[in-house]
């Protein structure tokens, strides 16, 4: 081991005995995600008796992150505040301090289970989980949407109006204006719902891929980095976005089941009614946001910021979002 992992190993071996006094050494350090500005590492803090404490480190080694993202200490404070709320989350063990010398970020307990959507959708091990997950996702969303805001750190507010304005701004900034995106924007303007009666905690990226699942079902909701205050319908819509169905297109909720079951579980958890038209608005806004993100990759590729084939191919996924928008806004297909 050399370079970055070796330095991190040394840093963690100095830090962990202060957090978990029985720790003798760090084992199994491996990087789970390869983001340039946000890293996720997995390791065990092993005690003298050989017992390992499974941990996850989310850290930024320095550098800028997306301006939508919460800072890592704020994300840690949010996840910590959610303990005991009924939202299944990992336990935050420690928020890194400058004196710890391993960057900016936090440590949390590693929950075993699967995050890869296609395995959850297809593997025999998750047959029972699949029968439960839609309801469990609805309950988890309901739980997070009724968390009292006074219990939370200060989070950014993303109103409906600001969401629409941001989409218009991004669409207008494209090098080549796009007819399907403008068609969707007209629809969003015409159908813009009133601001929600009260602001709620919104996860912002609530979908398969960002949850840990075991054979018995949902274990934890991960990746709170774009959480904000806003309209809870946004989360109920995002989990139904066609790309997050991973091919199982006739099952709108995460490729696993029907909206009616998700909505019923959410209503049971919150005691409030789901406004399906409001959810539809947020699904259109979500597909447009995703499509604009793909369109923006053209500039990354052409400017040389990221000249990879992978980046170029993401830019060619604009049309996927466009057909998602047309199916949702201009077809009779109930599973659009």
């Amino acid at each position, binding site marked *: 081991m050399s370079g970055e992992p070796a330095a991190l190993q040394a840093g963690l071996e100095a830090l962990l005995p202060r957090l978990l006094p029985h720790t003798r050494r760090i084992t199994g350090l491996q990087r789970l995600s390869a983001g340039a500005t946000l890293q996720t590492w997995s390791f065990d803090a092993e005690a003298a008796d050989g017992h390992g404490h499974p941990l996850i480190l989310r850290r930024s080694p320095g550098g800028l992150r997306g301006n939508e993202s919460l800072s890592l200490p704020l994300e840690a404070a949010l996840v910590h505040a959610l303990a005991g709320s009924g939202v299944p989350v990992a336990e935050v063990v420690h928020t890194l301090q400058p004196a710890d010398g391993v960057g900016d970020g936090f440590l949390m307990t590693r929950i075993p289970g699967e995050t890869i959507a296609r395995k959850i959708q297809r593997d025999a091990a998750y047959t029972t989980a699949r029968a439960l997950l839609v309801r469990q996702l609805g309950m988890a969303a309901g739980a997070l949407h009724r968390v009292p805001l006074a219990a939370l750190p200060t989070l950014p507010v993303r109103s409906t109006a600001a969401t629409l304005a941001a989409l218009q701004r991004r669409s*207008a900034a494209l090098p*080549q*204006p*796009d*007819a*399907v*995106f*403008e*068609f969707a*924007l*007209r*629809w969003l303007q015409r159908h813009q719902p009133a601001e929600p009666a009260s602001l709620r905690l919104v996860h912002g990226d609530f979908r398969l891929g960002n949850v840990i699942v075991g054979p018995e079902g949902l274990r934890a909701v991960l990746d709170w980095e774009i959480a904000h205050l806003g309209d809870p319908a946004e989360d109920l819509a995002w989990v139904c976005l*066609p790309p997050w*169905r991973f*091919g*199982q*297109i*006739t099952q709108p909720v995460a490729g696993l089941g*029907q909206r009616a079951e998700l909505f019923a579980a959410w209503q049971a958890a919150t005691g409030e009614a789901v406004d399906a038209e409001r959810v539809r608005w947020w699904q259109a806004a979500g597909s447009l946001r995703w499509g604009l993100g793909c369109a923006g990759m053209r500039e990354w590729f052409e400017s040389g910021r990221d000249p*990879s*084939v*992978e980046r*170029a*191919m993401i830019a*060619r*996924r*604009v*049309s*996927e979002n*466009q*057909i*998602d928008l*047309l*199916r949702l806004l*201009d*077809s009779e*297909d*109930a*599973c*659009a």
Partner: protein
Amino acid sequence: MLDHPRGPALLDAVAALLRDVLMPQLPAGSSAAFQARVAANAVDLAAREMRLGPAAEAAAAERLLALLQPGGAAQTQDTLEAELALAIRSGAIDDQSPALRAHLWASTLDKLAIDQPSYAPYRRALQLRAAPAQPPQE
């Protein structure tokens, strides 16, 4: 003037080389294997673009001319497409017009046939267009 095999056939051969010869030699699950798969997909896309793109662009140009009825000098396709988008934005074109919606659908379906013909929502849209009487399979 140009000799054969032409671009699309060459790209087909490159995609087959990547998939059938090179990828099996790369460690399963490695970044190199992933990159090679993405490259093979990109080569396939470029071949589909060479085969299907000219007809799709020509059909789109005809629809755009009918929708916009531009006067004056001939305009490039990009200019016409931008003009249509701006007309939708400003409300100069009624976004509920059947001709506009037919154009958006036709262009998007033609793009998917090139970009990602296996995308499940595209397959479903094609299926419903072929047999619209069938109720959606929930």
